[in-house]
């Protein structure tokens, strides 16, 4: 049964904190649609996040909410999910939260294949603190802490999640709304660790410093930079060099059904105790 917009979101908390032109609104809209199609129940769903703009999303959703410490949403959610497997646990995280301070938790969460759905909103910057470089800021791009251009190389978070063992990994930009809704839906239904990365916009923190202050410019940038995974494969572009060439591969990277941690623990329990 469809949940009304006013019922799904905590509209009493609006207006939200997100800047005009921020991609998070698109992500929230897509997630709302995916959740509605999933048949899941808000009462049995916990929304959690760490610290940052993306981690604020759960504050506007009308389920139980755990707004945690910076980078640690995955271990909080791991404890929560294993302590009550009946709960559906969804994490909203940013690239700063999950790719830097929480990087260790991300790879270990994937490795464990815990039943969690992670929506990672990657805007290539620390938005909440005003636009510092993050682990996904493209090489050479400007930020308040890389005034001469980012001297480092970025992470490909989706490839990281795939290599670390997640059961489902997909990446789209905020321009790919239909694909995004579909992938979010799949992620919500998947047993094991599901990771959906959304290449998003931050006109205030990231765009402004890189000649894309107008939200539309940044959307155009995402459009011109994103290449379907299949095409990337054909053209033998070095995919590990994501963003070095300014390219963002999009698509479904992993869709497998390794037993989740919960599956394994449950079957073990029955063996120990008949």
């Amino acid at each position, binding site marked *: 049964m469809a949940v009304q917009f006013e019922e799904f979101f905590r509209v009493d908390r609006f207006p939200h904190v997100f800047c005009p032109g921020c991609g998070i609104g698109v992500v929230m809209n897509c997630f709302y649609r995916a959740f509605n199609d999933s048949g899941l129940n808000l*009462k049995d769903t916990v929304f959690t996040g760490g610290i940052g703009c993306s981690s604020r999303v759960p504050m506007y959703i009308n*389920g*139980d909410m755990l707004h945690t410490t910076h980078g640690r949403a995955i*271990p*909080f959610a791991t404890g929560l999910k294993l*302590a009550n497997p009946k709960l559906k646990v969804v994490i909203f995280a940013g690239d700063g939260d999950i790719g830097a301070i929480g990087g260790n938790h991300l790879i*270990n969460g994937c490795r464990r294949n815990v039943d969690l759905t992670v929506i990672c909103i990657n805007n290539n910057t620390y938005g909440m603190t005003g636009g510092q470089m993050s682990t996904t800021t493209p090489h050479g791009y400007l930020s308040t802490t890389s005034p001469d251009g980012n001297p480092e190389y970025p992470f490909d978070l989706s490839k990281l999640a795939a290599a670390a063992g997640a059961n489902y990994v997909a990446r789209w930009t905020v321009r790919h709304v239909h694909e995004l809704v579909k992938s979010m839906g799949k992620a919500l239904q998947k047993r094991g660790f599901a990771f959906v990365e959304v290449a998003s916009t931050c006109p205030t923190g990231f765009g402004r410093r890189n000649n894309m202050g107008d939200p539309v410019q940044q959307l155009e940038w995402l459009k011109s930079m994103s290449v379907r995974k299949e095409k990337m494969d054909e053209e033998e572009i070095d995919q590990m060099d994501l963003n070095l060439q300014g390219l963002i591969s999009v698509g479904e990277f992993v869709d497998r059904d390794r037993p989740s941690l919960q599956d394994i623990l449950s079957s073990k329990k029955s063996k120990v105790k008949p």
Partner: protein
Amino acid sequence: MPDPKPGIEFMQGNDACTEGALAAGLKFFAGYPITPSTEITERLAYRLPEKGGVFMQMEDELACISAIVGASWAGVKAMTATSGPGFSLMQEGIGYAAMTETPVVIVHVMRGGPSTGQPTMASQADIMQAKWGSHGDYQVIALAPFSVQESYDLTVEAFNLSEKYRVPTILLSDAEIAHMRGRIDIPARIDLVDRKELCSEKRGEAYKVPDKLVPPFATFGHGHRSFVTGMTHNAEGDIAPEDEKVQEELVRRINDKILKSQKDISRFEIVNPDAKKFIISYGSSALAAKDIAIEDEKVGLLRLKTIWPLPEEQILSVAHRARSILVVEMNKGQMVREVQRLAYSVGCKAVRFVSKLGGEAPRKKDILPVLKKMEG
């Protein structure tokens, strides 16, 4: 492995702590290997799943404390165990648990520091860290066991207090107590306290705390649409990080609920209450001190089981009666400053100090020469 039968057993301190936790209703444990607490993690790896609970070895101690807080919001009793460097990493999550009023138990088996220090040797140099380790104004409850028996009993107490006050509670053990093997009398039954659930009609120990100081717990999945955040929040959970009044009320309340309950939380032992010379000690530092007090009726002992909130009433009462006080602890001076502060306030200026460093608990020969010089 079956539950230990009620009655006399021979056990290691860490194992007694583990069994105490299971008896208290532990259902989720997250640990990371670290000496000298590892036996707790190892024993729970096979004991907890047998009892229908979940055991997790996490990637680090930040993840351990985070996972137990998450599990607690699912409505189960959760614990972690660590030592020195791991306890330092957990400070972030302890502050979060204090701010979100999450009942969790942290077993901290103190070892020599700073840094890697002495992994296999004891110390009591983290008692101030236990209180002040995370940023901001907050309170925890900390209990220090003195024997194998108390490693069991105080672990049960730690769960009960944590549930009652919705506060992270720390069992401040040390390497000496943790690895000590000795007699334990497993109780036939223990009293358990469960957190007060929002909208629940149930009555119990936790319900005796006024709602104004300890709000009822809104377990996830029970339809409360809980709103849990480490940001400054009001009673409804709404964030208000720039509201002076909300910040003041919240910080006052999470401090007051513990500080105003000192009487209920204080656990201690007194030997020779009328003595004029008094030793104040705790944990493994009190082992030799207790022997001295038992052998010499002119020497009193106040042995603190509750470290935080500080049992001020008992310390003041000793300071009123005694001519001189000797604090014995395994650090460069932590509890002694607290005792001085209280004793000086009632005119007792003779507070001496035995500071035992090196990793071994103080022996009689470390204490007796100082005691001899004291007024009594």
